[in-house]
């Protein structure tokens, strides 16, 4: 028996890290999980081993864009004893950006997007919010400071610690203040994701009702805020939250997961070792780095969103 899910998300949304941690979890069997690995043999096993090794070493994953799209096939066993093959394509986030920017995708991506189970990844540290000049002017007046404009204004779009978006557009020659023309990639994250979900509900990608597991990755960064994943989505991606509750076609169901597959900020491939990464390496059971939050419950079981999609 064969089942398929698709992992979607804009670039650097945590898809490959999720897959690396999932493979580690399934092969090490150190924490209780809902789905078990039936056979060690898997398609793209070398790739899985490579990304799981980087994960175990607490090192950042290479971008899928550079390493190439992979389609993984795992043989899993459910708690009820059902054995099945799970197809899980690891597609570069650029393929999904292209859906918004170019209104097209490759045939292979389109085939993958016809799966009945959809994992949609959002990296909570890489959410691009809409930001309004009028709000900046009002805030500056309240604080009695000069409003930030041009480059400084664009930089304030980015969450702390994230480089300013460089894709906003190109300066218009001869226009005062160096304003830039609109480019699709400068649109807010929530707008791009709503459009992506809409594309799954109309031809040529429509296959009828599906299950959608929305994964808020890097959840460790907000776990001390004591908000549920659902509430976080409502606060930080309100347009997407409204769309999930009222816009999806009848028959669709969704669930929101807060997932920390990495556990903490890792060393960059070229960066100096971080204390957080050392703390992760120091853990006796690496699988315990993983945290999965649904509503009020927390576990180390990264198979939970996958299992829910396949139920």
């Amino acid at each position: 028996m064969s089942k398929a899910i698709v992992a979607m998300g804009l670039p650097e949304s945590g898809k490959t890290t999720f897959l690396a941690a999932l493979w580690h979890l399934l092969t090490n069997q150190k924490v209780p999980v809902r789905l078990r690995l039936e056979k060690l043999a898997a398609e793209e096993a070398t790739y899985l081993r490579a990304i799981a090794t980087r994960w175990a070493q607490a090192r950042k994953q290479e971008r899928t864009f550079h390493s190439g799209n992979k389609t993984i096939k795992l043989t899993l066993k459910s708690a009820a004893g059902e054995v099945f093959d799970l197809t899980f394509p690891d597609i570069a986030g650029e393929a999904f950006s292209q859906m918004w920017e170019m209104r097209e995708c490759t045939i292979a991506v389109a085939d993958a997007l016809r799966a009945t189970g959809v994992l949609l990844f959002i990296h909570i540290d890489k959410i691009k919010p809409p930001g309004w000049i009028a709000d900046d002017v009002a805030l500056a007046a309240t604080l009695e400071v000069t409003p930030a404009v041009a480059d400084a204004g664009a930089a304030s779009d980015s969450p702390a610690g994230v480089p300013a978006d460089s894709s906003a557009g190109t300066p218009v020659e001869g226009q005062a203040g160096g304003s830039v023309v609109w480019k699709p990639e400068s649109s807010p994250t929530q707008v791009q994701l709503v459009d992506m979900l809409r594309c799954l509900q109309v031809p040529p990608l429509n296959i009828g009702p599906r299950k959608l597991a929305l994964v808020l990755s890097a959840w460790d960064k907000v776990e001390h805020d004591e908000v549920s994943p659902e509430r976080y989505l409502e606060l930080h991606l309100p347009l997407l939250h409204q769309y999930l509750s009222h816009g999806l076609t009848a028959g669709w169901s969704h669930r929101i997961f807060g997932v920390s597959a990495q556990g903490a900020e890792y060393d960059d491939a070229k960066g100096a070792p971080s204390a957080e990464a050392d703390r992760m390496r120091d853990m006796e059971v690496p699988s315990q780095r993983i945290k999965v939050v649904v509503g009020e419950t927390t576990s180390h079981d990264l198979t939970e969103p996958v299992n829910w999609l396949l139920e």
Partner: protein
Amino acid sequence: MAEAEEVAVQCDNPDCKVAQDGRCIEGQELSACTHYGKALVIVERQTSTTATLPPPGVRLPGAEALTRGEAQAMLRGQPCNVISLVGPFDSGKTSLIAGVYDLFQHGPVGGYVFAGSSTLRSFELACHDTRRASKRKTPGMERTQTGDATYLHLDLVATGSDEKRAALLANRSGEDYMDAQSEPALASAYVELHRADVLTLLADGKRLLDLGLRHQVRDDICLTLRAFMETGATRPWQRLAVVLTKLDAVLNEDARAERALQFFEGIVQDVRDQFTEHFIEIQSFRVAASPQSVKAARGTGMVDLLRYWMSPPAHLQPRKEPVVTPTATRSFGRLRPQERADHE
């Protein structure tokens, strides 16, 4: 010398031919026109990559503004409210459309929840010059393209309901509507007017501050409506919204604000006096969709306007018709059945 004078004649309204014929397209004295003397900023439109590249894979549905045919298909497929925005060049039509969409970026608005849109790219384009990403110092607005009206689409769900209702926001260049004042027959071709559930006429707040221009604001509204009436472009079941735009600019002028607001109320009264019988309802609104000053918060007045736009379409409301009982000419026909006590 003559060449130097020719260079000096300029106007920031791209449709104005003042440089060629010396006349203001809006019929103003050159000294009174707010566009005359300002440089026309030509921003090269981004060439669509999708149009130049051959499709290598699977084409996905577009997310641009709908054409008339696409809007008609949507009207057939789901409940829709059509909102037509009418106003001269730079009166704030695109600002209103972009402003109402942008309010949903924060959450539900005025009892309505965002439930989708098939025109997200056009909304984003319309909003760009009000966003930080544009790197502008003050909010601006994309100019409405000339040609047939286009439609931006929002699916909304009212609180407590499960049914989606689409808002189709019709946008057409201001020049087209103003041309109808001198050539009313043009209005009969503006199909968005026939089908509109809410006709929205804009009064530019900035112009109301100018003692000379404010009278033209009144004329633009009343003469445009009259042209629509004369050509039968509107319907008696339609609602009319008269909207004061750029409220922030009005409130920013402390000394002249009150007078401008009173003048606006006078315009609304004129509209009621002349056109009440042609509409099922007339209401006025004051909005600041994308303020350039801090005198009004972004979105001021937009919630009430959205509610009005999404009012149940009056042409779908059941009307009470008087019961007409035909009187038979023959005596036999006037006989009534006898009521029986045991009749159930």
